[in-house]
């Protein structure tokens, strides 16, 4: 039996004249792209809504048009295609941390997802939302830079692939155009051994906005490092990849590296934001420390 319960209007928060016009909940991507093409910046895209509802706290009624991606199953896939891992934009943090494929191939991304917010946030928040919000403190962003991820941006009838490193242009700013949606995150895989570490420094275990995150992904051929993806979050207006520090490590085995020195190299290259969540000097020193910690962890994992 279905019980009908009418909405009690009198209990609603005051609706100051404004009201919503359209709520679209398309079942497939094609339809979503058509709607986005038509409404462009006059529509709010809703994924897991953990950022959207907080940003619009107490003024949700002011959002005129909604494009809800929740029902588009094709955006929730994690799959390998031609030696690349494809992650749909609507994949949640919870899915990432539970996925065997992600844990095996992209352990640092899985670890970062496990550190996001709380169970209540991880079950809803998506990788696409994390990327599109483009907060310098977004936990998944440094790992995506380490893994050299690219993002697929689609609009009706066209698509382009943008490197993660080029995508972020400033705090809460990115290259996405008003008629585009982020649909996929693409990460190249390798046959070589990959080992990595994730460090998040914050004030409290759960629900912290990161004061600093570090993601280190090393690729080995025998014992020699042939790729080194060092990336940090919350230390600059965008997440950053430290290419020069990575280059210093190439061709060496772990035992040949001076971890302390590499920590200083990291410290020398960051430009932390001085804000309430941690002063500049504090962040610089922490950055050097966590680099050493990360390298020790990788050494331990390789046994």
């Amino acid at each position, binding site marked *: *039996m*279905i*019980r*009908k*319960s*009418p*909405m*009690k209007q009198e*209990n*609603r*928060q005051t*609706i100051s004249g404004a*009201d*919503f016009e359209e*709520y679209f*909940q398309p079942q497939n991507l094609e339809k979503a792209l058509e709607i986005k093409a038509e409404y462009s910046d006059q529509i709010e895209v*809703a994924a897991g*809504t*953990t950022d959207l*509802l*907080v940003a619009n*706290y*107490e003024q*949700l*009624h002011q*959002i005129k048009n*909604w494009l*809800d991606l*929740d029902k588009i199953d094709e955006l929730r896939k994690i799959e390998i295609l031609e030696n690349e891992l494809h992650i749909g934009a609507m994949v949640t943090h*919870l899915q990432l941390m539970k996925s065997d494929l992600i844990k095996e191939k992209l352990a640092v991304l899985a670890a970062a997802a496990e550190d996001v*917010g*709380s*169970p*209540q*946030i991880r*079950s*809803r928040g998506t990788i696409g939302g994390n990327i599109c919000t483009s907060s310098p403190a977004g936990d998944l962003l440094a790992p995506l830079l380490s893994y050299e991820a690219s993002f697929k941006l689609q609009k009706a009838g066209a698509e382009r692939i943008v490197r993660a490193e080029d995508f972020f242009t400033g705090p809460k700013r990115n290259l996405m155009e008003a008629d585009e949606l982020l649909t996929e995150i693409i990460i190249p895989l390798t046959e070589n051994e990959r080992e990595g570490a994730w460090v998040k420094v914050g004030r409290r*275990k*759960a*629900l912290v906005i990161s004061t600093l995150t570090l993601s280190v992904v090393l690729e080995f051929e025998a014992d020699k490092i042939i790729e080194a993806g060092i990336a940090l979050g919350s230390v600059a207006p965008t997440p950053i990849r430290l290419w020069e520090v990575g280059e210093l490590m190439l061709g060496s085995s772990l035992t040949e590296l001076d971890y302390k020195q590499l920590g200083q190299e990291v410290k020398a290259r960051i430009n932390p934001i001085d804000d309430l969540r941690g002063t500049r000097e504090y962040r610089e020193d922490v950055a050097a420390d966590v680099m050493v910690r990360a390298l020790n962890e990788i050494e331990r994992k390789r046994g």
Partner: protein
Amino acid sequence: MQITFTVNGEERELEVTPYTRLLDLLREDLGLTGVKEGCGKGECGACTVIMNGELTASCLVPAPQADQAEILTVEGLGTRDDLHPIQESFVEAGAVQCGYCIPGMILAGKRLLDENPQPTEKEVRYGLSGNICRCTGYAKIIDAVMMAADKLAVEGSDSND
């Protein structure tokens, strides 16, 4: 717009707007006041429900996204006369002070024990990490979840006999 969802085992059809949050829908339209509003911003866990099997902050869910969902609130867990073992444990452990955080804590505890029936204390802390107790009764709340794990283990073995 119209949505259909199942709350505590009962199918419901409701008229909603996108700016109605699942929290408002449950509390005001359905009178399920065990779902509390604390911060309204995903930070405190007072509004926690289990939606499609996962812990969810109902203050961050626009009502249309609850369409077709299966939702459990604390009211669906047990009644006053027939408490769920987790609820019993909260009473017995003396874990309830003002009580505001408790429905969310109980649901977080239930979700954890469903997946991991014998959690360590650390795992309990991680499972409850989205729920804040302003009375800071964490030690007893964690005791209560550990106690519930034992109760459920005994019940489980009983029913297998």
